[in-house]
Structures are given as structure tokens and as C-alpha cells.
């Protein structure tokens, strides 16, 4: 993956830059030692690493503003970082950048159950947002699988989803307001505790902009009362086609489960070997969860199992109690761990229209043979968000490159099927060069024009999201201004 070569003029100014930053931040908030900056050399896309010039860990919006004003003034690129769990390389540094980490900003600023909102600093982890309101039986709905570690800042940058978004939506649907610092240090308040922000939907375009428009330091999030209960059912089928038809029939029948998870045979086998959840060996496994009171759950599961039976499942298992429910989820939740046990893997994230599921899975199977790499599929079937896991051996020369080429072909297939390159992980550097498969040059130009407005000097996370060639002239303006 190509990254722009560092600007020597910036590298030469490291000492001066550090001095200026130390004038506005406490000593322990500026990291300049090479051994220590190494901690920020990559995110969860660990195949790519580059220590930054400096890292800063501010504790307040004012400190973030001071940092950005200095970097703006010095013409230094800034890469914002939440918890560093991006699978797409969203927080990958360049050697001439300042990493701006929000990890020390993790306070809950306000909880308001009457108005059903929480306001937090964005370094707070996703799960601990729910943790702050669970005593009152509330929760924050978006639940990416990294929720124990990932920060709200990164969730907003990537518009993160999760397993339950069929019912509750993704980050953008649960974000009511932000405090955002723009690259020149200006602090902007957008939205708030009211349901719709006025004017243009700037909140909507900031969410998912991968840290390229501003640094979000505080967020007002919608919290919801927990449902009375939830229960899953596990259904196994002999073919992907039939499992896909079952999902479609359930949705058409007017049932809206909170989650519909789909696993194919390679995934079932790996999970079973790892977690021993007692899954049936079959071609396709569905885990469907519904919520409500006991009676409501019974009713919905009744409808679902009736539809499921009409498609002749090889297995249909309802959870009788909490233990059985946990066993049903056990395999799915350990899918990534199971894969890691077998091999190195690359997790993809394309989305497809649910109706093309059988076709796409068949093609992935064929391509797996062509590339000589095994692939297992986990899938949020309700919303079409696929997670093909390609297995490779990082120690074998050329395997990573083959894996990346295979991954790119799968993502192109998702686009051809009417879907998109990424459903919840973001583009980062990983899918940057595939953007022209989904969008025309004019479509991308419209997006670049938005960045021009928020960050005219193209200093915020400039080497991400768009093909480097496409952004070259804009990034060059920043360099020329040196």
C-alpha cells in the first residue's frame, strides 16, 4: 500500500514543532521519543506501520484546538486517532505527521434519562458509554465487535455499525450533536440534545468522514431503554440459496429481528473447532435474535420458525434459557478468534443487496480456488454487510499480496452486485484504490469539494479514503505552501 513520501522540510522542523506543542500542552501529552512514538505506528491493520513524527494526547477541546492551530500554522499533517482499532488503516501515520490521540478524553459529561441522551468526550470506549447508563437500564445501540476497545471518536469517524443495526441503525442514526475542532483550530458546535440540527446536515457528512473534516472531541448520543428481553434461534440449511430465501421471507412477513447473522460452512467448521458451541455441520447457519417481553418473543419466534420450517432446515434450535442463548451466540462471537487460531486472516467488509447473496457466495467460492486461499464468510444478513475472512500465511512470501488481490476482487464483486466496498469498517488506506470502482471521477470530486471547505490545506488525515492520484494536486498545494 503506497503512502506519500514524507516532507523533508517538516521532518527537519521536529524540534521546533515539539517546542511549540509543549508550550500549549503538559509535558506528558507530547510524545517525541522514537521508542514511544512507535506505539502509534499502526492501528488494527497491522500489516502497515510507520511511526509518526510526534504524537500528542490532549485532555480537552481547548488543547485539541491549540494543537490544530499550531499544526495548521506549521503546515503539518495531522492524523486523528481514537483507540487505534481501525481494520482499514484509518489511523495509519506518515513519518511527517502528528498523531492526535483522544484516548485521554474519556469523561462522561452529562447523562439525561428524561431526554434520553448522553454527552461524552470521544475518547470514551463504545462499551463504557452503555456502561455509564446501564444502572438505569439504558444502552447505546451501535455495537461494533470491537466495542470493548474502540472509541466513540473512531465510531463517528467510520460511522460504525454492529450486529444490531437492522433495528437500531448505525452511528449516524444515533448521533445528535458534536463539538468539533476544525483544522485551523476553530471550535464548532453542531446539533445538540434536540433531535434535528438546523441548516445543512453537517453532522451527517462529518459522521463517516474518517477524520478528514475535523476532530470530534465531544458527542451527544441517543440512548435507549433496554428491551425487556431478547432470545436467539439457530437455523441450519443445506444451501446458501435456501438460507437467503428464508431471510427474505422473514423480512417480507413483517418481522424485524434485531439481528440476523449468517455463517457459511468454512466459518461454521472453524468456529466449531475453536469454541465447541455444538453447531450443526451444514452449508449455512442463521442466528436470528428478537426482542420484547416473553410473550412477544414467543410470538415472533413462532412466526420465524414457521417460515424457517417451510424451507426444510437441517437444524432448528430455540434457546430455552439464557444458557442456551449464550451457546447459540458463542460460536458466532468467537468467529474472529477462531480464524486467528488457524491462520493470519484479512477481514473484508463489503455490503451487497441481500438478494444477491447466493450468487456472491458462489463466486467467492470459485475465486477462493483461483487464488488458492481459503475464505470463510460471516455476514449480517439483514442488512447485507458481508465479512469474508481470507486466510493467509504472513510468513510465506507473496501470500499477503495474493490475499490483498483476492480481497480486492471480492470487493469489486460486491460493487458489481449492486453493493459497496465497505459497510462499517471504512475505506482508510485499505480500500482507497478501489474507490473508482464504486464511484466515477465526478462522484469523487464532489466528495473532495467537501474536504476543500472544511480543510482547505488538506492537512487532516490527507492520505486516506481517496486514491492518492486523485488527491495529489490538492495535497501538493499544502506542500507548496511550505
Amino acid at each position: 500500500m503506497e503512502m506519500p513520501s514524507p516532507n523533508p522540510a517538516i521532518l527537519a522542523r521536529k524540534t521546533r514543532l515539539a517546542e511549540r506543542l509543549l508550550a500549549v500542552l503538559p509535558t506528558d501529552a507530547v510524545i517525541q521519543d522514537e521508542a514511544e512514538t512507535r506505539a502509534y505506528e499502526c492501528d488494527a491493520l497491522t500489516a502497515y506501520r510507520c511511526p509518526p513524527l510526534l504524537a500528542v494526547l490532549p485532555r480537552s477541546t481547548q488543547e485539541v484546538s491549540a494543537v490544530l492551530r499550531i499544526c495548521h500554522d506549521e503546515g503539518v499533517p495531522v492524523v486523528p486517532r481514537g483507540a487505534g482499532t481501525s481494520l482499514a488503516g484509518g489511523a495509519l501515520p506518515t513519518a511527517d505527521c502528528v498523531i492526535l490521540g483522544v484516548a485521554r478524553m474519556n469523561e462522561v459529561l452529562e447523562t439525561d434519562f428524561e431526554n434520553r441522551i448522553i454527552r461524552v468526550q470521544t475518547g470514551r470506549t463504545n462499551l463504557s458509554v452503555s456502561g455509564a447508563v446501564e444502572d438505569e437500564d439504558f444502552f447505546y445501540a451501535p455495537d461494533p465487535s470491537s466495542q470493548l476497545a474502540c472509541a466513540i471518536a473512531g465510531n463517528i469517524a467510520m460511522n460504525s455499525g454492529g450486529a444490531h443495526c437492522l433495528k437500531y441503525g448505525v452511528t449516524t442514526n444515533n448521533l445528535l450533536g458534536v463539538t468539533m475542532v476544525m483544522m485551523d483550530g476553530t471550535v464548532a458546535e453542531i446539533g445538540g440534545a434536540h433531535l434535528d440540527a438546523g441548516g445543512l446536515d453537517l453532522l451527517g457528512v462529518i459522521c463517516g468522514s474518517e477524520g478528514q473534516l475535523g476532530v470530534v472531541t465531544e458527542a451527544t448520543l441517543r440512548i435507549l431503554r433496554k428491551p425487556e428481553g431478547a432470545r436467539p434461534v439457530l437455523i441450519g440449511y443445506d444451501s446458501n440459496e435456501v438460507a437467503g430465501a428464508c431471510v427474505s421471507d422473514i423480512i417480507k412477513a413483517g418481522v424485524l429481528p434485531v439481528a440476523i447473522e449468517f455463517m457459511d460452512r468454512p466459518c461454521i467448521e472453524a468456529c466449531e473447532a475453536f469454541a465447541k458451541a455444538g453447531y450443526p455441520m451444514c452449508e449455512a447457519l442463521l442466528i436470528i435474535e428478537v426482542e420484547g417481553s416473553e410473550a412477544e418473543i414467543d410470538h415472533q419466534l413462532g412466526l420465524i420458525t414457521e417460515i424457517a420450517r417451510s424451507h426444510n432446515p437441517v437444524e432448528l434450535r430455540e434457546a430455552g434459557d439464557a444458557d442456551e442463548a449464550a451457546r447459540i451466540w458463542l460460536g458466532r462471537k468467537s468467529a474472529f478468534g477462531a480464524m486467528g487460531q488457524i491462520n493470519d486472516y484479512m477481514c473484508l467488509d463489503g455490503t451487497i443487496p441481500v438478494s444477491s447473496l447466493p450468487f456472491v457466495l458462489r463466486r467467492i467460492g470459485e475465486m477462493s480456488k483461483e487464488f488458492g486461499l481459503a475464505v470463510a464468510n460471516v455476514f449480517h444478513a439483514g442488512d447485507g454487510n458481508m465479512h469474508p475472512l481470507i486466510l493467509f500465511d504472513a510468513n510465506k512470501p507473496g501470500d499477503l499480496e495474493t490475499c490483498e488481490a483476492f480481497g480486492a476482487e471480492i470487493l469489486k464483486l460486491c460493487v458489481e452486485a449492486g453493493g459497496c466496498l465497505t459497510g462499517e469498517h471504512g475505506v482508510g488506506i485499505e480500500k482507497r484504490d478501489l474507490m473508482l470502482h464504486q464511484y466515477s471521477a465526478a462522484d469523487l470530486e464532489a466528495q473532495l469539494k467537501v474536504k476543500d471547505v472544511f480543510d482547505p490545506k488538506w492537512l487532516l488525515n490527507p492520505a486516506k479514503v481517496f486514491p492518492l492520484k486523485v488527491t495529489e494536486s490538492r495535497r501538493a498545494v499544502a506542500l507548496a505552501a511550505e
Partner: protein
Amino acid sequence: MMTPGSEAELAEAIAGASGPLCIQGGGTRGLAVEGEVLSTRGLSGVELYEPGALTLVVNAGTPVAEVEALLAAENQRLAFEPMDHRGLLGTGGEPTIGGMIAANVSGPRRIQTGAARDHLLGVRFVDGAGQVVKNGGRVMKNVTGYDLVKLMCGAHGTLGVLTEVSLKVLPRAEAAATVTLTGLDLPAAVRAMSAALGSPYDVTGAAYDAETYQAHIRVEGFRDSAAYRSAELVKLLSPFAMAEVLEDAESLWRGIRDVAAFQGRDGDVWRISVKPTDAVELVPHLEAEALQFDWGGGLIWALVPAGTELRNRINVPGHATLVRAAQETRARLGVFQPQPGPLTAVSEGLRRQFDPRGILNPGLMG
């Protein structure tokens, strides 16, 4: 009036325009600016509807009524319950999907399922230079590049003219039940609605009529489930007032959605968005002739004497939109509330980027 019959014709019309354009769908919201009318009504029809995938792709000029009928045949709906402005504004015409999206029109169910923008999956539009742009797609989860889909929703045609939109649709509920509490003043009504919205009973509507002192709380779903949850709500809300349960209250909610209470009455109508509990503090300052509340108290409809500048009276965070007034009042006060400094600069910057000649609904949003 120009009524292009295809996206390509619409792009040509914009590229060739020599002056301001008034972008119009059905013209039911009465927001016409001065300029040649550019209508999207020639771009009509459904491109794709997959009930099993909850997905609809439709041309911008398609009447909302046509889409709703199509969805109803499959027991589905536009869950955000878009308001029909014709009664309140006394306008004619036929609301279009493009107009609905351009204005992010949402109704009572917005508190539970989100606004129009939350159901919008993809757009195609023509910018002010005549360039066709697409963003998003037809799948529910999509974080590929910037979300211009949201930016276009609620931009009132000032950044581009929508030609096609993709929407997430949802199953229509089998049944609904409405719990009505009578004899509440506003503070008690907001507390009751907050209690209902903070319950696990999945409330899909919470409105208060300050003229009848009634709060209405709606649940929807399968028949037994709606009955169960409305009964639980009656218990939960018993400290506030005696409650009665209505099983069929469709016309009541249509009236709340369309602000039927103000139809045919003189005066200007403002729509104010605040934090629900702030409504209590704000209302005495409004000196309104009549008030209606939706979204648990967070959406306030105020009827005031014609020409009143209401924004000066707002003492809590939020914003006010002038929905119904004489042309002169609109011009004087502005339909939309000015944004704080940095956001004004960004909004102006975006308008300049997408509409460099300033010809798309000029002046409408600032």
C-alpha cells in the same frame, strides 16, 4: 417552467441556465424562490422495489402517494411518516419523493425510527454546474466515502437537484394502540411522555395537544404485542392521569403529523426543535396563540400573530423554522434559522462548491 424528462435533460437545463432557478417537486410546501421554475415532475417512476431486502429506488418526481400505495400492497411503508403540508399551508399539488427528501420531511414516528435522512440510502443529483453525481447506494450499510446522502437530505435543493433516491422501507405494523392521558398541563405532559419514551415499550409516537390538555402515546406492532404494551403504559402512566386506550387512532396521528389543529386558522406557523424538557422553560416566552407538541415535547408547533419575530424569544438551545407566513415575512425573517458563525462559513463554502453560480434556490437557506 422547465420540466425535463430525464436526468440528462435536467443536467442540460441546469448547465444552460442563465439565471436563478426555483427547484420544485410538487410545490406543496410553498417555498418558491424567485426564478425560473425547474420541476422534477418529469422524472417519475419506481426503478426497483425489493420487499425482501426492504429497498426502494425511485425517481425524484414520483408522487409520495404512489410510493405509499406500492409499499402498502406489500405491507410495508415509509417508516418516518412524512408530513403532508397541503392542509396547513393551503397549497395544492402532489407531494413528491424528491421534495420530501430535499426537506427531510418526517413525522411523529421520527422519535423511534429516525427521520427521512435516516432511511435514505443513496442519491443521484445534478449540482449547480450541471454535473451528475451519485452517492451512497441501495444497501443499508455503506460507509464508502463521504456521506453526501445526508448532506443532500434537508439541503432544500440548494446543493443540487435530486433525480433519484434509494430508500430503506420497513414493515407496516399489524396493529397500533394509543394511550391518551387527559387533563395534563405541559410540564406534566412532558414528564409523562419522557416516562413513556424511557420505558421498554418501544413508543412510536408521543404528542401533546395544549388546547385539549391531552397527551397521546402510540405503540405499534403485532396485535397482541401492541395490546400488551399499551396496557403496561397505562399502568406506568397512572400517576399522571387516567388513561384510555384507542385501538384505531389513524386519523388522530395523521392530524398530529399534519398539524391539523392549525389548519384554516389565521397567523404564522413556526416549527421549533428543542430538547424535550426545555419546551417547558421555553413556552411561556413564546407568547403563542396556540401550541402543539410532538416528539415527546421536542418538536413545538407555534401559532403566532402574522409577522411576529419568534426567534428572539427562544431562550434555550435549538432552532426555529418559519413554516407558514406571508412572502414579506419570510423574506424579512428568513425561513431557516441562521447558524452559528463557523457553521455559516462552512455552509456557505459548501453552497459555493456545489453551486458556484448561486442559481439553485438562491437565498432559501441563507
